[in-house]
């Protein structure tokens, strides 16, 4: 991403946040107004500054001035983010450990495409899902008494 683009996007995101909180800013009176309103104003000004800096930088920036970051594997990021969201939705429905097992297997299967043999991939995924779920249950529930979200199943 070009530095100028990053500046503009950062500025816009700051402005969006300031706007969202400003819309929600309601009913505050007296001393209670000072801190949040001050922050919203500061963020909005920061956003404007970032956008202006990005526009100014774009004028002076060489076309080749790209940052040297490694390319992101967006497909893999999308898979883990999507599965994590589905996992969160499934927990109250299926129960924590059932959802965890399914998430672990699915994520392992989807992210380890370099294992070309499907049987091996399924076998390793199942082993990982069962062993890790079991380890979580023993260590958190049995040993540490940490509560886990409840669902219809286990």
């Amino acid at each position, binding site marked *: *991403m070009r530095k100028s683009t*990053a*500046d503009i*996007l*950062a500025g816009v*995101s*700051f402005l969006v*946040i300031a706007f969202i*909180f400003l819309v*929600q*800013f*309601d*009913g*505050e*009176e*007296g*001393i*209670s107004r*000072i*801190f*949040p309103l001050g*922050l919203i104003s*500061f*963020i909005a000004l*920061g*956003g404007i*500054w*970032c956008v202006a*800096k990005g526009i100014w930088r774009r004028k002076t920036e060489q076309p080749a001035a790209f940052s040297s970051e490694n390319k*992101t*594997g*967006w497909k*893999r*990021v999308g*898979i*883990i*983010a999507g599965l*994590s969201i589905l*996992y*969160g939705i499934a*927990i*109250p429905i299926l129960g*924590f450990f059932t959802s*965890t097992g399914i*998430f*672990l297997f699915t*994520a*392992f299967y989807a*992210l*380890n495409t370099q294992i070309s043999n499907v049987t091996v991939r399924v076998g390793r995924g199942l082993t*990982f899902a069962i062993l*890790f779920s079991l380890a*979580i249950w023993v260590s*958190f529930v049995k040993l*540490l*008494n*940490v*509560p*886990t*979200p409840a669902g219809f199943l286990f």
Partner: protein
Amino acid sequence: MGVAVNEFILPSFLNLLDPLNIFLMIAGLAGGIVVGALPGLTATMGVALMVPVTFSMDPTNGLVMLGAIYVGAIYGGANSAILVCTPGTPSSVATTFDGWPLCQSGRADEGLYTSLLSSSFGGIIGSFFLLFLAAPLAEGALNFGASENFWLCLFGLSTIAVMSADNMGKGLVSGAVGMLVSTVGLDPNSGIPRFTFGIYEMVQGVAVIPCMIGLFSFSQVLFLIGSQRQHIAEYHPRKGTFGMIFRYLATKCKVVLMRSSIMGTLIGILPGAGGEIASIICYNESKRWDKDPARYGKGCIEGVASSESANNAVIGGSMIPMLTLGIPGSAVAAVLMGALLAHGLQPGFKIFTATGELTYTFIASQFAVNLLMIPVGFLLCKCMARLLNLELSIVAIAIVVLAYIGAYAISNSMVDLWMVVLFGVIGFLGAMVGWDAGAMALGVILGPMIEENLGSCLQLAQAADGGLMTVMAGGYINKGLIFALILSLLTPFLLKWKNARKNKTCDKGATNA
């Protein structure tokens, strides 16, 4: 003092030679380190979980074990901060700044040993203050009111200026976003819900730990998965690293360690100012006073040493007001105080005489625990470092599960779990456009304290004769903190000016030659 030494201090150290006490210290330390290393499971939770277990024990044994869990958990947070860029406890946020770069450059063992030895050193200094200077320091802490705490938090926040010196604008705005996020929930001044976005559960506010897990842990999962690497980082443990780090800390970091430990203890004494604030402030100070501050944030041993010595020194500090005044300096100290009361100990200055032997045994155990932490932590961090040899996809998937369970465990709320996802995505996308996750985390941590103390000051100013200036800038502590804050904010500019002057001199020299 002589009477106390003969009557209580010497017998208390002898009590520690009891094999059961030694076993409980080792078990407590190991348990604490594991709890601390798991994101979401805090020192407070670890100690609170074990308090009921101690009811069946002798008070001495029970308190010794709880103290060991506290120490272990605060140190344990550094392991995950260094190995997977996920602070196990909020106290280890500053450890990620240099610990994670060390890990990425294949020097994870150096980071782990630095955190272990520095934590031990900081803990011993904190215990020393607790043993010998508790009474005068506790009286001094009473001079800290709302305005002093406000300036102290702002001083902590000024770290952003030093931390994101290359991108100060975005860093400061990121910090402000963090503070704005911390305003979600009940207004501390009026008690009215605000910024809840129509979601009832948001009235409880955005909890710090799920937010930290999201910003540092979940976002890191997305980065790692997107990086297409096979392992989190290259890990090549070398023989003699422990000795090398020990010598380095003993020779080149002694000032950093001593300064951070003393500052950590003093900050720990202040109620509400815990390890997270201490480690951030001490990291900032170490960077500021270093001859080459540019190396911080790139895998600098001193960075890890300052943060870790400070957060473990806080333990001794937080116990000073707890034991002498009955005011806990941190959440864990509050839980420990509950355990003290349950075991029949009444905090107050008389605690050192009426139940002297038990109190001094507890304090002495803190010295022993910090020394025992070196072998126990050494073995455990060697096991934890093996994480780096696992396939990256396995570690990343496991982190998601641990992040969810840790976030849920804070208050048994699914909202916390969604906060992890939300802040994870914000951290991931934000980093691409230059947001500073560290600055945002600072804002989330310090925001509530700043707002609460500012509100108190404004209310006081309405009643005070001299108005706001008298309340905010009156007294030598306020003046000192304001001076330190200005100095902190000016530091990046002073350093730039110094470097420019240095370069100019070099250029002149080269031209003349």
